[in-house]
């Protein structure tokens, strides 16, 4: 196990722990902060996984802008902190139980390695080297893959249509926020 892996596991544990705290804290504000913490951990993992640009906007946009919006609304509403109602334990048991079953269904994904995925995609018998199926660039390029330019080019060429759709989406969001938040129609 090398350093990268260790770092990965540390941040993974951090993310999971923060998420767990996020869903269990009774105070909405605390929950939001733990969610921000999860997002930071995820941003770190993104970097490890060679998605530097995404990691950057994860911190800037997601953890920064979006979550601040959340915090802002929470503060605005000035909600009183309601401690957990322990009479609702059956709901918790049911919810966590269902989530556990769902998790158990998803758990077999842990067995996926790049080799296995390569085998499944290429549909070849026996052991398949993933490097043959997934073209492997040199390490520098791999790092560069997550860079801005590398994302921007396809974003404005191949993914032009979705990109334009997001603009529509944001337009909708703007109108919506205005319409819904206006004091008076």
């Amino acid at each position: 196990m090398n350093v990268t892996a260790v770092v990965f596991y540390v941040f993974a544990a951090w993310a999971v722990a923060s998420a767990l705290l996020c869903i269990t804290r009774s105070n909405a504000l605390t929950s939001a902060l733990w969610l921000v913490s999860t997002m930071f951990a995820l941003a770190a993992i993104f970097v490890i996984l060679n998605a530097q640009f995404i990691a950057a906007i994860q911190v800037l946009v997601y953890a920064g802008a979006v979550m601040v919006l959340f915090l802002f609304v929470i503060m605005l509403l000035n909600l009183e902190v309601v401690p957990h109602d322990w009479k609702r334990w059956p709901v918790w048991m049911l919810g966590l139980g269902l989530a556990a079953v769902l998790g158990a269904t998803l758990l077999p994904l842990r067995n996926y390695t790049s080799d296995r995925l390569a085998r499944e995609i290429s549909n070849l018998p026996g052991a398949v080297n993933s490097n043959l199926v997934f073209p492997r660039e040199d390490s520098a390029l791999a790092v560069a893959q997550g860079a801005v330019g590398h994302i921007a080019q396809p974003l404005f060429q191949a993914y032009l249509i979705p990109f334009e759709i997001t603009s529509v989406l944001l337009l909708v969001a703007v109108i919506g926020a205005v319409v819904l938040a206006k004091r008076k129609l």
Partner: protein
Amino acid sequence: MGIDLSSPGGATLALLPEILLTFWALVVLLFVAWRHRDGYDMRTAGALSLLGYISAVAATGWLAWRGAHADGLSFMIALDGFRFASDALLLWIAGAVTILSVRWLIRQGILAPEYYPLLMLATVGMMLLAGAADLITLFLGLEVMSISVYILAGFDRTRRASAEAALKYFLIGAFASGFLLYGIALTYGATGQFNFGLIGAQFAATPPTLMAKLGMGMILIGFAFKVAAVPFHAWAPDVYEGAPTPITAFMASGIKAAAFLALARVLSEVFPAMVELWRPVVFGLAVVTILIGNLSALSQTSMKRMLAYSAIAHAGYLFLALWAHSDEGTAAVLVYLLAYSITTIAAFGILASIERAGARTVLLTDLEGLFAVRPFASMGLSVCMLSLLGFPGTFGFIGKWFLLSAALHQGQTVLPVIAMVGSAISIGYYLPVVLAMTLKPTRTRQAHQTIRFPRPARIAVAICIFAILLLGVWPNTVLNFATQKAVQLRQSALPLGNR
């Protein structure tokens, strides 16, 4: 007319209807920003948005007329007859809802002309969803549509019910989006592609893997939510009841149509190779949706709620056509959606005009004796109920027959029987509406007499009723058209050899 979708010019051409509609939405938005004082402005905004729909229809028609098709791969957006048919269907729904909305909004005192651009952008989202040839487009289209409709459902936010509807729809919708997105991620992981054709080709070449199965399951869950299939249906009655009535009509017909059209495309282009895997899921969804939808509708007193459950039940029927997974099935989806949307819009149109400003939702008992005062409205609503019931002589029957036919031609007998059991149950809630209007004595004569049926809505509803009856006995054109479009859908998936 071959179009190279990878070039910006080609993409523009292919997306002409959507672009035009967006353009008009911006025009309306600008107009709204300029004038948003009174009912007159509202009406003007509505008329402008109708122009937008008309231009989008024209663009769709032009593309279809020129036989637009993709040179090579359908990139991001599909270019085939099925998409044009879907677009036409969705545009007609949106246009009709716009007509119904104009007076209704004014009467209810909702003087916010942003309504129209939102409706148009929602329609853009629906068209993108139904016409997507790529999971990214699909997701974004779905979100454009959903977010618009979240807002529209809560548009009458001075009413608590409307706000509550929006919240419920939004929370559960976002939750469902998460599932859909996870499904997309896993499918992407399993194939390395977002494009429908390429994924389909990949699945055709390899046996289904765990990741593919999970991905497909998650995507199905996402769609099951959108079409309000049991047990993902629970939001529907509440949201339908709380939302403004024209938006309810829009949701019941438009969103359902867009989701089903997209699902039909996804199932026939992305997952055709896994048909034996998803058929049992569709089967199970159909059974519980038909039975629970119909049974729950029995005990409703509110018309909107009853129609919500009826909408759930109809989603169950539509699964029959998906199960069939054949040209006939795809055509049946189109025909049934058309029949269902015409009927639903007419029914909601009549209900909307019966509603009084700020009053609670229309109850079954409010309809009693309507025939004596408003004979044509109640006849129209009766025809709608019969069409929803699938009564011979109405378009609804043709749709149902086509659905059953599609399933039976594939050797499926259980689902048609269950569908007909559901129909038999449904008579228990459709018939009382007819009964209340025509046979019960009126208790609220004065109330009925104050009903105002605005002319645009009246004309739209009359056309719908006429269409229900005419297509009920003369469905040739529609049937042939739908079959032709279904064949085109198959052919557009064919070059990649995934059938």
